């Protein structure tokens, strides 16, 4: 039986930052991760990290932009804390060794980003996530801790109302193991693979979210799903907002710069929900290209700028779309990109079960509210990763010894043995594909009650079929079929929570757009959705939005 003070699940930026904070606080820390830390999806973040460090900019403007971007669903106290931490966080990452792009005077270079009043997004070409991930991993590498690599989280162990450890599957050796921990930090990232059309990596299956939910922790605001305006047409590979930050423009099939109709002031650099809806509308109304897409044009920026500041984008579009952005427009459509919702936490990363903490995209503090601004997610991983690590360390310092029992382990293995013993049954991959098709078709940018009800009906049918899922693979070494089955089960639970929340919220706010309720409704709906597991699926309750200084106003860009 393994035992640690603090177990961090997930080794992206949030998980690593949490681990570093807990180690520095003197705790014995272990990281459990299904990928080598440098393979984490944090590394795929392209555009940058926001910090109001410029002379003309101010922390207050960053706070205001984030509150407005959230469509007034973000908690203003958390957003204030978050934006104040931005400068020190970026400086710390620079001191850890991050190689940022620089201005001529030697300071950190900044680029404009959507929904921001000033050029506030600090970047490392168009691979900012990778640059931060490398530096943090290298800094963390100087500390001593345990890592369980290529382990899948399967469940949390809760005894006496407190989280006391985890159960996980060791892919390499084919064993389940229980790890006792006084505090558990979930930093497992998003569940973007609920959708077929997503910019997310294959590994983004919401394992931590599902484990927390099943253990009875509250999930918050799960119906708010961000669609990134510019994903490559077929593969849905992300084309950074930085491409528009550097001057890229969107055009429809008539050659019109259509954003002038939707966001007359800031055009292509409106908030992501606004731009995604605009593209969707253009295509729906017949102004898209055949095959349903629009163009992102960079050609006018010139080869030099494209190839240096958008180097990865150049490679991506050349390799994955056969398009050279120096001479040709890039075919793009919106795709699922980010989950504003997550495991409900306070601004110290504390979830709703004692001993449980969460950070990064898996968590919902909430600072993004109904719509996240570009450049705020990398910042979130680091700011709240650190907070969660500190809080978990403090909790573990005084917590009683944690215990996990053989029964905790037996519960998981019995479940898997049953899946493996079935001669006939459902293939996990088939269930996953149907779930993805359902979410793509019925739970997209624009939502209608009919579509959402149909999605719910289909998802529940898939959940019933999942009870009969089978693992046909018998090997004990890297049994990915077992991983597929576990992940698919996680995502089916989370997809249901998204749809139930979306059906209940009879308003349009940020990324949640209801065709039958096109307006924001602050009287009834300026509140967070809280979902917990019930006997008949998720049960919803609502919590107030923390409010300090910023009155809700209509959002115009």
């Amino acid at each position, binding site marked *: 039986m393994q035992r640690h003070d603090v177990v961090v699940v997930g080794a992206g930026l949030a998980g690593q930052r949490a681990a570093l904070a807990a180690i520095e606080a003197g705790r014995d820390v272990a990281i459990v991760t299904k*990928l*080598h830390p*440098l*393979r*984490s*999806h944090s*590394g*795929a973040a392209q555009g940058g990290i926001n910090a109001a460090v410029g002379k003309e900019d101010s922390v207050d403007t960053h706070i205001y932009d984030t509150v407005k971007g959230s469509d007034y669903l973000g908690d203003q106290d958390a957003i204030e804390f978050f934006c104040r931490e931005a400068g020190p966080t*970026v*400086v710390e990452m*620079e*001191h*850890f*060794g991050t*190689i*940022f*792009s*620089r*201005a*001529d*005077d*030697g*300071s*950190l270079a900044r680029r404009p980003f959507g929904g921001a009043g000033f050029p506030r997004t600090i970047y*490392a070409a168009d*691979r900012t996530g*990778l*640059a931060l991930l*490398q530096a943090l991993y*290298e*800094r963390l*590498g*100087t500390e001593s801790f345990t890592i369980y690599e290529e382990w899948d989280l399967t469940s949390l162990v809760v005894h006496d109302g407190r989280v006391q450890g985890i159960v996980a599957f060791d892919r*390499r050796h084919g064993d389940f193991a229980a790890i006792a921990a006084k505090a558990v930090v979930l930093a497992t990232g998003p569940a973007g693979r609920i959708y077929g059309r997503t910019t997310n*990596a*294959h590994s983004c299956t919401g394992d931590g979210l599902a484990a927390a939910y099943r253990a009875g922790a509250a999930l918050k605001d799960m119906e708010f799903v961000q669609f990134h305006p510019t994903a490559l*047409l*077929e*593969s849905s*590979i*992300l084309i950074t907002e930085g491409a528009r930050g550097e001057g890229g423009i969107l055009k429809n099939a008539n050659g019109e710069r259509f954003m002038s109709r939707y966001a007359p002031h800031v055009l292509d650099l409106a908030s992501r929900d606004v731009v995604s809806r605009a593209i969707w509308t253009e295509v729906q109304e017949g102004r898209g290209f055949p095959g349903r897409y629009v163009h992102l044009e960079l050609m006018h920026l010139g080869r030099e700028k494209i190839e240096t500041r958008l*180097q*990865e984008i150049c*490679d*991506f579009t050349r*390799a*994955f779309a*056969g398009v050279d952005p120096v001479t040709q427009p890039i*075919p793009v459509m919106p795709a699922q990109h980010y989950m504003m919702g997550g495991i409900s936490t306070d601004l110290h990363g504390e979830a709703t079960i004692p001993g449980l903490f969460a950070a990064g995209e898996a968590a919902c503090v909430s600072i993004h509210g109904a719509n996240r601004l570009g450049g705020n997610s990398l910042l979130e991983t680091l700011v709240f990763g650190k907070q969660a690590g500190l809080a978990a360390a403090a909790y573990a310092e005084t917590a009683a010894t944690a215990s996990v029992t053989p029964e905790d382990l037996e519960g998981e293995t019995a479940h898997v043995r049953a899946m493996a013993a079935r001669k006939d049954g459902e*293939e996990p*991959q088939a269930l996953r*594909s149907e779930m993805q098709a359902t979410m793509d078709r019925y739970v997209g940018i624009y939502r209608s009650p009919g579509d959402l009800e149909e999605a719910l009906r289909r998802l529940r049918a898939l959940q019933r079929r999942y009870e009969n899922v089978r693992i*046909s*693979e018998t*090997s004990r*070494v*890297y049994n*990915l*079929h077992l991983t*597929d089955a576990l992940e698919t089960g996680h995502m089916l639970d989370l997809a249901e929570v998204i749809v139930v929340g979306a059906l209940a919220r009879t308003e349009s706010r940020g990324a949640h757009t209801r065709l039958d309720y096109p307006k924001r409704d602050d009287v009834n709906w300026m509140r967070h959705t809280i979902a917990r597991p019930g006997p008949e699926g998720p049960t919803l309750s609502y919590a107030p939005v923390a409010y300090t200084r910023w009155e809700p106003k209509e959002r115009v860009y």
Partner: protein
Amino acid sequence: MAAARVKVPIEVYRFDPTHDAKPHYDRFELDLAPHTPILTALLQIRADRDPTLTMRYSCRSAICGSCAMVVNSKSRLVCQTPVGPEVEKHGKIVIEPMRSLPVLRDLVVEMSPFWGHYRKLEPHLITDPRHPMPADRETPMTPVEVERFKETPRCIACGACYSACPAVEADASFPGPMALAKLYRFVVDPRDSARQDRLVRIQTEGLWLCLRCHLCTEACPKDVQPSQRIRDLKEMAIAAQGATENGSRHALGFKENLRDRGILNELKLVRQTMSPLAMLGQIPQGLKVARKKPETMRKPPKIQELEQIETLYRELDDAPGEKAR
């Protein structure tokens, strides 16, 4: 955007240590658009044909570094390699696990030798406590200083270079291209204070085992150009410490030796490379060579066009930037 489909024969290396005594290849045939990434083809096999096909993959956009494999004998990221050109060139696609790393199952390899070399180079900023970084603000760094990193920050640690490297295959103590490119990244970092130590240390820890074949640069999916950075490290190491190792003495000796006569004087090259004591150990080998190829034991005549060689050397010595390092 609909493209014609082509028949894609794929042969995949299979080995499961729990069932198989030895590896075999499974053959699949798919109908795919030519620009389909090989990863997509493999995932299609997993979904529709054989869920036991085992490999690492995650981002599918050449940024996580999970899916390096050997494709028709070349180390590549399968997410970034389309099927069409491979089939056109080779008639089929043969997928094998990366080389020089033990196979755990199918296309999944043990990466710990690769990571071990990386960790051994102390891949983190080492700062001088006497010159702390500015408190509360970033360390100033000009765009010109950022350019000195060249393409090394793009490295995604996929291991394709390690798999492609014949020096790694021949000698497991060679750190490999990725680790050395990473070392370069720290050596040129103006914030790092261990430059001299790093350069001195690497002279005896494998720098000179690089064969300069450039296969790493060819394999790198992110254009990091490890072989060019290894060359830079060699120059910087000699500048920092002098030619203290057989490898560095051999490099300098080679240069001088060729300048003399325009053709290698191999006997002299041995003297230029090795210490007298080490040469004693080479006597048996020398006698063997003398018997088989006596011409190598004689001083070769100067070539006729030696003037041209001298001009070349002058131009290279005067080339800007090279000596500045």
